[in-house]
């Protein structure tokens, strides 16, 4: 798909108001970001959002149930001084509510033996659960490293005795970490591919019923653990990211089998990187539609249909949003796209 950077830049350009400048100055954000939050949420809720970003999120451990039961792991980690709270919608995963000074989560015997994976936040569990709901078969994880979702998918598919995870990424040093996780967790149903995801369509002869596209993004939903993201991405930088996100989504949709499902995921709350991208691609391509999530794991917020002068298809309301001030998680957006049966 041919995408013009200038066109995107023009579409997403935001001129902040004085109110936005003042709040941005107070909390250290780029003004256009605050203006965008005010436009979406209103001033009062924007304050709640930026204050929520100042709070830390609870890390999550996900039991490798192929090697150990979640109860056994919980008992062993509690003996080491960790306090764990089960995540009600993700069996075998726990919020870490208290940690000892030593060992760290990534240095216990149990970790080295592959009994669990550490997620920075619970939000990344959701797309895997949605995409693999009542599914057995292969999955392509197009931007997979460092591998939280790929190893989770492999674990679920292994328990269902069906399916291989094709885990691709462009960045080799991140793939190195993924291979480490695969061996540590003793998974044998993952194929690791080193490629630009946009090149997969022309190279792969086969198609997939499930594709996970966790697109490289601004990471605007992860400000709580990386405050530098408050001022790292200019509007032009954002336009460059959006262009790549459109190219990735457009390209990977061509790898989807009729009836197949692709989860477009970003750890960003920017509508430019989510609803705008999905709307742009769906509008240009035939045979694709957005679908509601098959599971209500928690009370998701809906996708944004209208943003400043941009009006998207009503379908994007089916995307789900996680807001730090509402859900207590990273800011996160998931859109499920299905290829219609021709």
């Amino acid at each position, binding site marked *: 798909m041919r995408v013009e950077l200038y066109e995107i830049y023009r579409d997403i350009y935001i001129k902040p108001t004085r109110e936005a400048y003042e709040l941005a100055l107070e909390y250290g954000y780029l003004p256009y970001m605050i203006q965008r939050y005010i436009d979406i949420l209103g001033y009062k809720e924007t304050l709640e959002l930026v204050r929520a970003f100042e709070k830390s999120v609870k890390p999550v451990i996900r039991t490798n149930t192929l090697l*150990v039961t979640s109860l056994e792991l919980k008992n062993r980690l509690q003996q080491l001084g960790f306090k764990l709270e089960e995540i009600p919608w993700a069996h075998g995963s726990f919020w870490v509510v208290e940690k000892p000074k030593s060992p760290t989560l*990534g240095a216990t*015997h149990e*970790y*080295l*033996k*592959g009994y669990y994976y550490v997620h920075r936040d619970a939000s990344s569990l959701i797309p895997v659960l949605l995409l693999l709901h009542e599914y057995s078969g292969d999955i392509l994880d197009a931007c997979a490293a460092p591998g939280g979702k790929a190893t989770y998918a492999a674990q679920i598919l292994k328990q269902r005795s069906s399916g*291989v995870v094709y885990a691709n990424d*462009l*960045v*080799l*040093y991140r*793939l*190195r*970490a993924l*291979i*480490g*996780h*695969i*061996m*540590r967790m*003793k998974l*044998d149903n*993952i*194929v*690791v*591919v*080193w*490629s*630009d995801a946009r090149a*997969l369509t022309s*190279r*792969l*002869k*086969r198609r997939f019923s499930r594709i996970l596209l966790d697109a490289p993004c601004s990471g605007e939903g992860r400000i709580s653990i990386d405050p530098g993201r408050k001022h790292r991405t200019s509007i032009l930088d954002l336009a460059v990211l959006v262009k790549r996100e459109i190219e990735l989504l457009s390209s990977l949709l061509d790898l989807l089998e009729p009836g197949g499902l692709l989860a477009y995921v970003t750890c960003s709350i920017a509508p430019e990187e989510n609803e705008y991208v999905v709307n742009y691609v769906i509008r240009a391509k035939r045979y694709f539609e957005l679908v509601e999530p098959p599971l209500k794991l928690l009370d998701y917020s809906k996708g944004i249909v209208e943003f400043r002068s941009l009006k998207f298809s009503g379908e994007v309301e089916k995307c789900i949003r996680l807001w730090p001030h509402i859900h207590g998680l990273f800011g996160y957006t998931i859109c499920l796209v299905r290829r219609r049966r021709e």
Partner: protein
Amino acid sequence: MPSEEKKRIKLRSRRTPLRLLEKLKTIIKELYSVNPEDYIPQSTRLTCIDEFCVIHSEMPSTQELRISGLRVIFEGTWLGVYTRGLVLPSTLITRRIFRDQGVQAAILVAEQGVKAFLYGNDILPESVIKIYPPSKGIYAVIDSIDNEIVGFTKWSSEKKVYVNLYDLGIFLRLLG
């Protein structure tokens, strides 16, 4: 071609050279008196990231990917490691052999010993709770807490310790 790296990483992935595959089969046969063909498939690959090499099985579906020019850098079951000139079975394959044949050529190690071992250290004889025969110099290390295999050692009569050949912590130390 994929990305510019922050730090130059040397990656090599190829069919396992016959001499390495034979070495792996020989050590499995010597240590556990089993037919290695029961545990090592015919098609295997060797992936080396910097100086750390892993032998793993080749999945049939990946041949098509390679033919189309994609770089498959890991797949299938972890079978062994090739490090510092030595070929050793993976803990995964050893686990399967022990499940089928019972525990052999292994040492059961106390918690403190395992802790040090997983950080790359050697094991002192005082930490060894039990030695499973036969004694052929190389031992699988079993954690006494959960009977999980955590790596391999070699007895050094000179140093009077079980020298760390590799442990599961290596993935974190070398691969990040």
